[in-house]
């Protein structure tokens, strides 16, 4: 069997296509992903913060000082509205970034006129900082009106806060930062791990059985005095190694590039996230991936054994990607946790377990159950693969 493994590995390492999917792709995906997300997010936020916003005011006569204050800010540009006008359409057409409407009470003292409303019209569908930036002026307006009221009522400074908020609800979120961001992005990591693992194994799996049939080498190989179980196990080991290498490179790449880009681009979020995951959790993620890789290797090799040609094998495998994506996407859905039935759904349970490992909330005892059940499935599929390889009707279709 090891002779087969040795030879197949030698061939594998001489195949540029395999090396690309197994090593280069996982190495490139993470810098591309982290870099692109970090760069575009910070650039978009920066642009939104510094953009000169065109605005118009309705009811400006009710508080001309406020209008003047905003207009004096270099990052705002006041535009006069023609009467009558459809200012909402102008916002949709991007001629204006926002419009504020002041009511008649805008400038009056709160004790005389009561509450006042400032209405902000904007297109809030995309990333923008309009509300944040205009809130600063409204906050100042509020503060001024409050101070004026307190002075009129002669409320001592020490009681002012209590008057504004007699009862305070204090929230103490005991979830660690890691758990918070793990919940948000933890589902994405197994998604990428599984897909890259599958990609890494697809090319060698296609080549090792269907490719051999197509080249006419399989028949010659079947005539050597080696048991067919050993032949197929040798091939399985190579496909498994390819999948695991792809997974290892993926995890290494994720850790390495996460830290590099986090430091290089001063994205503390990514840096914090990567450093908070313990080494043991990275190891456990890898351990969980081994049976998953075995499942992929056994299924891919079985499909390849059945196919008459490399092309036919690839077409079967493309459909497999969709079948793998489904259980992982389920694991990413909100409200799906590693409890009840989901702890027993193959692939979904591993994806959820990896998410829990990232969050730092994994119950390691439950992990053993998931690992065992996944290993049993992998063993069953491998047994099928060996049986399949011994079928004349499959080999000589």
């Amino acid at each position: 069997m090891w002779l087969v493994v040795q030879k197949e590995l030698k061939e594998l390492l001489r195949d540029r296509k395999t090396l690309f999917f197994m090593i280069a792709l996982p190495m490139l995906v993470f810098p591309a992903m982290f870099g692109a997300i970090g760069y575009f997010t910070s650039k978009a936020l920066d642009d939104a913060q510094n953009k000169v916003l065109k605005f118009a005011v309705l009811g400006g006569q009710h508080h001309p000082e406020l209008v003047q204050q905003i207009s004096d800010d270099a990052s705002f540009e006041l535009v006069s509205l023609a009467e009558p006008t459809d200012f909402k359409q102008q916002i949709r057409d991007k001629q204006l970034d926002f419009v504020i409407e002041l009511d008649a009470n805008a400038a009056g003292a709160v004790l005389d006129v009561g509450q006042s409303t400032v209405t902000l019209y904007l297109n809030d569908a995309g990333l923008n900082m309009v509300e944040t930036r205009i809130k600063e002026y409204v906050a100042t307006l509020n503060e001024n009106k409050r101070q004026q009221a307190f002075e009129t009522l002669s409320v001592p400074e020490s009681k002012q806060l209590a008057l504004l908020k007699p009862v305070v609800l204090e929230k103490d979120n005991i979830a660690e930062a890691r758990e918070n961001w793990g919940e948000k992005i933890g589902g994405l990591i197994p998604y990428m791990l599984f897909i890259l693992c599958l990609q890494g194994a697809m090319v060698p799996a296609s080549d090792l059985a269907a490719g051999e049939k197509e080249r006419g080498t399989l028949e010659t190989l079947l005539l050597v005095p080696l048991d067919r179980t050993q032949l197929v196990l040798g091939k399985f080991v190579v496909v498994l190694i390819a999948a695991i290498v792809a997974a290892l490179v993926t995890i290494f790449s994720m850790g390495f590039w996460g830290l590099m880009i986090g430091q290089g681009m001063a994205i503390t979020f990514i840096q914090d996230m990567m450093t908070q995951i313990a080494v043991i959790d990275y190891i456990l993620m890898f351990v969980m991936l081994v049976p998953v890789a075995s499942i992929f290797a056994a299924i891919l090799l079985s499909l390849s054994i059945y196919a008459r040609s490399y092309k036919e094998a690839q077409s079967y495998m493309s459909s497999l990607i969709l079948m793998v994506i489904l259980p992982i996407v389920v694991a990413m859905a909100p409200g799906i946790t590693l409890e009840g039935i989901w702890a027993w759904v193959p692939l979904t349970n591993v994806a959820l377990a990896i998410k829990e490992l990232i969050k730092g909330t994994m119950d390691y005892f439950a992990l053993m159950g998931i690992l065992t059940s996944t290993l049993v499935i992998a063993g069953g599929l491998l047994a099928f693969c060996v049986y399949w390889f011994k079928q004349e009707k499959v080999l000589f279709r």
Partner: protein
Amino acid sequence: MITVKQLAKRFRVENPKKLTAQEKADPRLKGPFFYSVEDVSFHCEKGQVLGLLGPNGAGKTTTLRVLSSALKADKGEIAINGHNVADSPAIARKSIGFLSGNTGLYGRLTGRENISYFARLHGMSAKETEHRVQELSDMLDMDAWLDRRSEHYSSGMKQKTAIARAVVHSPSVVVLDEPTTGLDIMATQTVMDFIRHLKAQNTPVIFSTHHLDEVAELCDQVTVINLGRTQYMNDIAQFRGAGQSMNSAFMNILRGEG
């Protein structure tokens, strides 16, 4: 020495409803099974070359696959040097060297690596393998290019490598399934020379082909298979008959006039 007696190999028909009228009328279709080989017998002594002839779909390739133990026989007996293939397939595999016209190589391996891999799979030690590969390289004049990746070989180089691979374990019997199909003149010549060499070494050769000129040139015995059955078995002189061309003799046998 090879003896094949009343060999039969059947396959289950996957989609009986998809069979054409002509396929349904084939006498080899029996219930859910199609008998690719129904009753084939022949015998080949040491130093003899046996030509296995027959039209396309006659059952030649299936016969040779069963003979080389790639497929299991459903009925009949195959003995190679006295060993029953069904009882001891591993011994049979060690005894047989197999080559066909569409046998490929591992393109990303060199010719030397291709041959050595099979030598090792046949249980030869690293030292034995090295020695034997060099011996074959000298014999087939492969030294100049043996360490280049085989994906860059010409058809002649590929066929020489495939020949070396087929006999690297010094088999006592060689089975050739249409070994010259799709080859150019030079590569065909390499195969013909190889068969002559085997014959000179007293190695029995079973040789299936559609090229009757090759049969005339090389074979001592002829067996014609038609519709999965041995239809004719005799020596080459009897096959030709008095003044007949090889083609006429073959057609007469197929028509049942031989």
